[in-house]
């Protein structure tokens, strides 16, 4: 199934198709195909590890499958899936931190180690340093930064996803960029 087929369906059309019992499986298949790339990037940037990303992504879609019949479309399907993905990522990080007894201060070190060990991604010169600077941000700030900087989501969309006010998001993003810039300054 090519990308062209996916692009022809909007989220609205996919939801209509999903509500048709005979086509719900096919519609969900298309939803997974359409949203996997963006959700993968978001989760991967949060947890760094590729295997963890696979597991979380799978859970996101399973949860979506169970909850889709009750989805009221107050927000777009994409925003709703982002919301599930961000909640799952943060829950996973917190659970892992508790399980591995990682103190808050060591979270950055832990993520940096994951970055260093990541053989699947070939970071260009300087990019790894940029990524390492991002790992110094607190989880929620990192989530906001990734959604704004990489995924180009609007503050309104991020507000729907995170449940935070637009003003607070703007402040959070501003602080994040300042912190990253300061870390990237040559000594």
């Amino acid at each position, binding site marked *: 199934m090519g990308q062209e087929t996916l692009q022809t369906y909007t989220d609205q059309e996919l939801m209509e198709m999903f509500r048709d019992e005979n086509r719900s499986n096919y519609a969900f298949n298309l939803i997974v195909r359409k949203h996997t790339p963006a959700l993968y*990037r978001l989760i991967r940037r949060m947890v760094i590890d590729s295997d963890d990303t696979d597991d979380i992504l799978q859970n996101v879609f399973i949860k979506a499958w169970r909850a889709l019949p009750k989805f009221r479309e107050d927000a777009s399907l994409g925003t709703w899936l982002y919301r599930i993905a961000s909640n799952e990522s943060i829950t996973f990080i917190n659970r892992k931190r508790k399980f591995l007894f990682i103190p808050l201060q060591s979270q950055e070190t832990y993520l940096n180690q994951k970055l260093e060990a990541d053989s699947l991604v070939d*970071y260009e010169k300087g990019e790894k340093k940029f990524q390492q600077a991002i790992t110094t941000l607190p989880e929620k700030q990192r989530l906001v930064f990734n959604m704004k900087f990489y995924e180009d989501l609007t503050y309104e969309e991020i507000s729907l996803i995170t449940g935070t006010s637009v003003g607070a998001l703007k402040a959070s993003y501003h602080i994040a960029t300042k912190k990253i810039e300061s870390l990237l300054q040559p000594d």
Partner: protein
Amino acid sequence: MSFEEKYKHYKNSRNLDVSEDYINKTVERVSDKISSPRRNARPFIWGFSATAAIATVFIFLIYPMAFRQTPNKPITKQPTETKQNIAQSPNDIQAKDSGALASVPVKKETVSNDELDQEAVIEYLIDEGYEEI
């Protein structure tokens, strides 16, 4: 220059793009999970937790209450006073001073306060041959 412009090259990095093969595998994995009978561990966990909670309550609360042995009541009466002590009333002291009690054989038989009966004591002493008391 804004932050986005300054780091545009990182922003547009495509190194986290997923392949068509990865998408197919994700679809497959998700489909397998959805279509397979739901193997939910929750009922087992809840069942186990409930059993453990009931067992704990039984062991620590119900069992000790239901099968607790009542503390053994002493078969013999607690020694509260001896006859030596009984002979401490002013009369006795007086008698003692007069030497009347000097040779009274004292039995260290225990008697409770309930049984402390002055008349019985006097009777006992008379029986023992101390009529002058």
